[in-house]
């Protein structure tokens, strides 16, 4: 059933990416201010004015109309607010540009510490009353949301007898990479002993298996590749993009570790795209929970089922914890959701763009040309994107 049709291939590009940076504390900024700051940064970077923008697309909050109001954008011919994670608004924007609904899209995600994330965010009165109130408290007896990832981690451990260290490899790599990233929230070095001693939250997953609630935002400009060539930064072309979902998509009904949204994304990207894992210079497997990363690595084809931990142990530096696939391809070079901050994949995409543009500062990889981002989890939000430069 996987279609290889991909008429927008390489015709739509990122012209720029910018970020406010992230912190694991309540900022004294609203979510809309964070988004606006990132949007202004990317527009200045691209040398664009309000009148150049005719499309706005971000994750659910803040709404596109708030961004238009805040930036005084004259008129829009297209806008949308798809749900998180970040490949949803990117995919919508790519489709809208390719279809001619608009020419230049301002795309954004604002991460915000919601009242139910942490005790300190619960104490901020504006977080309790504002738009960002989030979901209500469910009963304990559910696998919905974060609990589901702990549930499937237990299943992974049961099926493959995986030790905790295999999950720890993912956390240590993210932390090592965040140390060189000034945008990152968590930059203190971490050891395997630190990981193993961390507080259990939803056993078998501990505090360091989960991404960090942060305040901060990323913003992007997405336009035609032709238009992007006239802007200051090197265009980063969208070779293929996919949002994958498999049937029985509820967390507790998902068929198995062999059949979920990740498999749909992988098959779709392989069918639509022009390159795959042997050709990439950068890999960004989502790490909102460590169990997600282990499965992306296996499902993308780097190793067999249940082998991600051993694969990582063979492709990591024992001293630093940094993973370099085949000694060459870094994994989540910005520190991922686990250590840069829980950005719903916007950090992964922004870092891929900055690396491909040669703008990644101390983390810059030498001459990367192609990147794979596999964002989201298993159930309702697996997604991926293949990016390249010309």
């Amino acid at each position, binding site marked *: 059933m996987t279609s290889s049709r991909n008429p927008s291939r390489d015709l739509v590009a990122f012209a720029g990416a910018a970020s406010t940076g992230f912190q694991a504390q309540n900022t004294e900024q609203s979510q809309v201010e964070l988004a606006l700051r990132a949007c202004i940064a990317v527009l200045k970077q691209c040398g664009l004015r309000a009148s150049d923008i005719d499309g706005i697309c971000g994750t659910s909050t803040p709404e596109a109309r708030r961004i238009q109001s805040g930036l005084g954008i004259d008129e829009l011919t297209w806008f949308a607010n798809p749900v998180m994670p970040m490949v949803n608004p990117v995919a919508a924007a790519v489709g809208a540009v390719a279809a001619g609904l608009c020419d230049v899209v301002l795309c954004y995600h604002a991460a915000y510490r919601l009242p139910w994330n942490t005790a300190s965010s619960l104490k901020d009165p504006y977080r309790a009353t504002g738009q960002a109130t989030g979901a209500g*408290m469910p009963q*304990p*007896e559910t696998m919905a949301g974060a609990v589901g990832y702990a*549930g499937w981690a*237990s299943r992974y451990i049961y099926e493959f007898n995986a030790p905790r260290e295999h999950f720890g490899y993912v956390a240590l790599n993210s932390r090592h990479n965040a140390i060189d990233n000034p945008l990152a929230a968590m930059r203190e070095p971490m050891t395997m002993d630190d990981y193993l001693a961390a*507080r259990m*939250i*939803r*056993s078998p997953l501990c505090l360091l298996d989960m991404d960090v609630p942060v305040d901060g935002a990323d913003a992007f400009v997405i336009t035609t590749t032709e238009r992007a060539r006239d802007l200051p930064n090197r265009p980063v072309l969208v070779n293929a993009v996919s949002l994958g979902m498999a049937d029985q998509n509820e967390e507790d*009904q998902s068929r198995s570790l062999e059949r979920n949204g990740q498999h749909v994304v992988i098959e779709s990207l392989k069918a639509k795209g022009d390159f795959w894992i042997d050709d990439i210079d950068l890999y960004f497997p989502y790490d909102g929970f460590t169990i997600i990363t282990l499965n992306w690595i296996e499902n993308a084809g780097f190793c067999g089922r249940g082998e991600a931990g051993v694969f990582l142990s063979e492709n990591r530096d024992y001293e630093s914890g940094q993973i370099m696939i085949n000694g060459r391809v870094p994994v989540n070079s910005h520190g991922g959701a686990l250590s840069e901050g829980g950005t719903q994949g916007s950090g992964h995409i922004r870092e891929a763009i900055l690396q491909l543009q040669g703008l990644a500062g101390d983390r810059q990889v030498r001459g990367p040309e192609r990147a794979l981002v596999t964002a989201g989890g298993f159930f309702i939000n697996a997604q991926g994107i293949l990016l390249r430069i010309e």
Partner: protein
Amino acid sequence: MVLDISDEELVVRFRGHPIDRDNAEHYRGRLERQLRINRCKDCGTWNHPPIPTCPTCWSLNVEAAPVSGDGTIYLVVFLHQGPPAEGVDYSVPYPVVTVELDEKVRFTSTIVGANNDEIEIGKRVSLDWIERTATPLPVFRLQTSEKSE
């Protein structure tokens, strides 16, 4: 008797639960301590959570039917923290299990009457009931008479 309670009263009895038209019969069943799962009256397929269609044959002839309640643990989590709920003390990590019922549909709840180190994927369980805020809650109990897989 309890079968006849109004939609309004059902919502009040299950305050805090996401009661809607599509899952109301499941929750009415709880008041009779009967675990009801949607089953297609045309092709017989079980499906959960409740949705008005049969995803296998697209029939709308779907009913909430009682299940045996026997099954096998498929997923296990121990919550060291979580939402407040009557009778739940996270000082001992609170087990949440997804059980693959013998009807080949999964249902998630907790396990009662077992130490946490006994609760493992692959073990057989049976349905039981406890009360929370004076309302029946379906839970599972390990089948102690039987060896685990």
